[in-house]
C-alpha cells in the first residue's frame, strides 16, 4: 500500500484523488450479486428504456462504494473512515467514467481523535458532479 498519511500532513483545501472508475455492464452485474440489488434498470436494456432511462444506469450505491474506496485509499492502513454520506443527484451511464474526488474542508481534534472532514463527490467526464457527499476520517499522528 501507499505510505501512511498523517494528520500533520493534511491541510484544509488539500485535494483527494482522483480515483477513476470505469463501470462496465460486467461490473454492474458483479455488484448486483455482491450487494444483492437485482433491480433490472441496472442491466436489462429494454427494461431501462421502458422506465424512460436512456440506457442501464450505474447503481447509486456502487458510486457510494467507489467514494468509500477513495477514502480508505487516502486514509491508509492506519486511518479510519468514520463517516460517509452522499446523495444520488445525477445518473451515470454504463460504460462512462466515474471520477471520484475530494477536498479537505476541516481538521480538528475531538475526544483525542484527529478528525479530517472532507467534501467528496463523483463527477463524469463533463465535470458534472453526480454524487456529492462528505466524509470524516480519523488519521494517526506522527506522535
Amino acid at each position: 500500500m501507499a505510505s501512511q498519511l498523517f494528520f500533520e500532513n493534511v491541510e484544509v483545501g488539500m485535494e483527494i484523488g482522483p480515483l477513476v472508475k470505469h463501470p462496465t455492464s460486467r461490473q454492474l452485474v458483479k455488484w448486483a450479486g455482491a450487494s444483492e440489488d437485482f433491480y433490472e434498470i441496472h442491466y436489462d436494456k429494454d427494461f431501462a428504456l421502458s422506465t424512460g432511462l436512456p440506457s442501464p444506469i450505474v447503481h447509486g450505491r456502487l458510486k457510494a462504494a467507489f467514494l468509500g474506496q477513495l477514502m480508505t485509499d487516502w486514509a491508509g492502513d492506519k486511518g479510519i473512515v468514520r463517516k460517509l454520506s452522499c446523495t444520488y443527484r445525477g445518473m451515470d451511464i454504463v460504460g462512462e467514467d466515474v471520477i471520484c474526488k475530494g477536498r479537505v474542508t476541516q481538521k480538528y481534534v475531538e475526544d483525542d481523535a484527529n478528525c479530517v472532514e472532507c467534501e467528496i463527490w463523483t463527477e463524469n467526464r463533463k465535470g458534472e458532479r453526480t454524487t456529492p457527499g462528505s466524509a470524516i476520517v480519523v488519521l494517526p499522528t506522527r506522535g
Partner: protein
Amino acid sequence: MAEQLYWEDVQEGTEVTPLSKIATTEMLVRWATAGLDFNPLHYEDANAKAQGQAGVIVHGQLKRAWLVQLMTDWIGEQGALKKLACSFRGTDTPRGMAMIGIPKEGETWWCKGNVTKKYVEGNDHLVECEIWVENGQGTRTTPGSAIAILPSKG
C-alpha cells in the same frame, strides 16, 4: 416434499413430473453472480447482438441446473441422482422484463422426461430417463438423459 417415489412405482414410459420455469433477465444475473460466469452474452444486449444473437440468452448451465432440479424433485429425498447429461441444442431468450405482467406465449419453459429403462445393478434399483427442456413452442432446446437410484419397497 412430495411423497417418496419407489422403483416399483415406475415403468418404462412413466413420465417424470414436469417442472415449469420462467427465465428472466434477473434470473440470468443471479445465475451469473452465483456461479461466477460473467460472460456478457447473458446480460449485455449489445454483446449478445455482436455475437449474432437476437438478444441475451439463457445460460446452458442454468438449463442443466433446471434438469437437475427436475430429477431431484422427482426421485425424492431417498433417491440419488447418479448421472446427468444434456446438450445445448438451441438457444433460449429470457422473458422481457419491460413487459410487466403475465409472460407471453413461449416465455414459459417446461422441463420434462420419460423413463426409458429400469434395471437392477448390484444392490441398486436404477432408472434411466430421457429428459429435456422445451420452450413455449414445444421445441426441445436442451435434450439429455439421467440415471437415478430409487428406493425399493423390498
